[in-house]
């Protein structure tokens, strides 16, 4: 086991605490860079979605994970980013300009949402952000002169510095990857700055933060603005990737998916956003795969255990019928959310840390290390 010996403050806030980080992240980056030349075009397309979802996940982590302000309205921020890009594109605004403008506008709207949200905590904030998202969705459907209403908007192919970048080209993937990496590095820097520390202080105890001199209102609004702006940037990429946007793409369902991203990944570390994004994006192809191959596999297993061909055929058709039931995806989503909340509250990254610690401490690992404390005393109503 490695012991980090920190002698001054600079050691404590290092981005890469020890040399192992350079090796592992270097390998990861190299793999990501050669990915477009190795993977199939379908997987590449999924990988682009992973990048976009992970960017939104990082944005949501800043707000929910580190500032402790739950939001179920991030689909609305994504929509604002996407629609701003599509609208500006109609007037031949170059990509870098509308990319920044979308993020900026979304950030401003995020700050405007943040102001009223100052007075709200817990459940009220969740309800308020849901309402905000529903109102935005309705505005997108009704403001036809700008958004083209329910018919949706076409998004033209991205052109960067005179070069067209089709949505399934490796260049587009590199662009998304660059945005994700910049977002992550920027967020890491933010979190080790005084601002980031203020965020975490607010999350842990608003009263304590205030009494230590943190301007709670200012930092909450900042957190909302930053989170919304990053989501707006992701929205531009989202619009280009889909090449067509309409209001029904940005429903509450999508906001919930973003929350699931950080919930499954783990809400205490940026790794969580990426792991959660991989999970959410890959669950679709995985389910399709199960639908196609699972019946045959189960029948094969049954046959090896001595089931006759007739029984095996029966099993195969039963499983196939089950797998093609409508709404199976929703049920699986539901079960996954509940199981993660109940049994893996720290998410996939938490599980990874547990496994790592298990081997580091080999015979001495104890489960209680990661146990959360239950609080039965405090009533959130009196906050």
């Amino acid at each position, binding site marked *: 086991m490695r012991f980090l010996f920190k002698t001054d403050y600079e050691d404590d806030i290092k981005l890469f605490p020890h040399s192992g980080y350079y090796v592992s992240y270097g390998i990861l980056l190299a793999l990501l860079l050669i990915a477009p030349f190795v993977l199939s075009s379908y997987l590449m397309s999924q990988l682009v979605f992973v990048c976009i979802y992970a960017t939104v996940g990082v944005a949501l982590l800043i707000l*929910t994970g580190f500032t402790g302000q*739950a939001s179920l309205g991030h689909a609305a921020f994504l929509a604002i980013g996407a629609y701003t890009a599509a609208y500006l594109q109609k007037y031949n605004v170059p990509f870098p300009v509308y990319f920044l403008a979308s993020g900026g506008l979304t950030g401003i709207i995020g700050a405007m949402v943040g102001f*009223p949200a100052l*007075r*709200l905590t*817990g*459940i*009220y904030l*969740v*309800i*308020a952000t*849901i*309402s*905000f998202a*529903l*109102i935005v969705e*309705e*505005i997108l*459907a*009704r403001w036809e002169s700008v958004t083209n209403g329910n018919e949706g908007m076409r998004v033209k192919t991205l052109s960067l510095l005179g070069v067209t970048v089709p949505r399934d080209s490796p260049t587009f993937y590199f662009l998304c990857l660059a945005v994700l990496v910049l977002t992550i590095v920027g967020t890491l820097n933010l979190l080790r700055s005084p601002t980031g520390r203020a965020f975490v202080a607010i999350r842990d105890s608003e*009263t304590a933060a205030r009494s230590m001199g943190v301007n709670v209102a200012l930092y909450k609004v900042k957190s909302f603005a930053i989170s919304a702006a990053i989501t707006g940037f992701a929205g531009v990429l989202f619009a280009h990737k889909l090449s067509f946007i309409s209001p029904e793409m940005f429903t*509450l369902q999508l906001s*919930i998916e973003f*929350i699931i991203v950080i*919930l499954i990944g783990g809400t205490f570390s940026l790794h969580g956003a990426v792991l959660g994004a991989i999970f959410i994006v890959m669950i679709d192809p995985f389910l399709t795969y199960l639908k196609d191959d699972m019946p045959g596999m189960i029948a094969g297993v049954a046959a090896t255990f001595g089931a006759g061909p007739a029984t095996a055929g029966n099993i195969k058709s039963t499983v196939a019928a089950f797998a093609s*039931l*409508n*709404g*199976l*995806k*929703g*049920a699986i*989503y*539901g*079960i*996954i*959310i*509940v199981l993660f*909340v*109940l049994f893996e*509250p720290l998410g996939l990254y938490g599980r990874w840390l547990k496994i790592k610690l298990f081997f580091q401490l080999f015979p001495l690992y104890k489960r209680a290390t990661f146990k*959360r404390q*239950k*609080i*039965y*005393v405090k*009533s*959130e*109503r*009196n*906050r």
Partner: protein
Amino acid sequence: MLDFVQQLVSGVALGCVYGLIALGFVLVYKATEVVNFAQGDLMMLGGFFAFTFIGMMGLNYLIGFAGAVAAMALFGMLAERVVVRPILGYPQFSIIMATIGLGYFLRSIAGMIWGTDDLKIETPFSHGVLRIGSLVLAYDKLSVIAATMILCTLLYLFFNKTTLGTAMRASSENMLAAYYMGIPVKRVVSIVWAISAAVATCAGVLLAPITFIHSNVGLVLGLKAFPAAVLGGFGSIPGAVVGGVLIGVIESMAGFYLPEGWKDVAPYLVLLAVLLLKPEGLFGHHVRKKV
């Protein structure tokens, strides 16, 4: 004028359904400080149970109604035992997510079992109308209003006058202290979930003649019930119903007098306004935190 009254009555009837769902939120919130995002889906499931008993098995309306309520009360206890109890005491956000997951699950399962078509339950109130002068009031709407008033009164008395109700209020204020005082907190929570599922079922069955039952009805109406609960002050039983009625009336009036589109947004605009101007709602208490 006649139009106005007509709109008012249908708004009140719809609002009563919102109020009944909001009542479910409030009950669970009052007793456990937890908000059940699957409340609308419990309502939907209750409606489907009633449809199975009345429409498919051909039972008498009242017997089928009672059967659905009993079945859903048990289901509510089961849901509490499996999903909520293990995470009681953790941050609210975990429980919100768990109930959202439960809602997803219920919606898909209901879609698988009962299909995705709109279903209709024949009730004794389905067809008749009451005429007062030139005013025409449908019995199905009046039945919703009457049933809501009765349920609300009963629950209010239950919470404020009975020992069990007091125990529920105590365990919401401070679970640990309530436990020390000899209140079986776990059983209390489980009973609260049974009651709130039963109330949701009443909403589902009463709603059935007005809008049909389908697997997404819970999501749609559940989201509308949030403004109702917030307007009434999360945690007040009469407040939930008054809030529901107000939201129903506002929605119905906005649909009639304002341009298209306002109908769907109006409840949420009201909600945001309430949260900004008077976050404790119409009937809530404003409590300052002591450090």
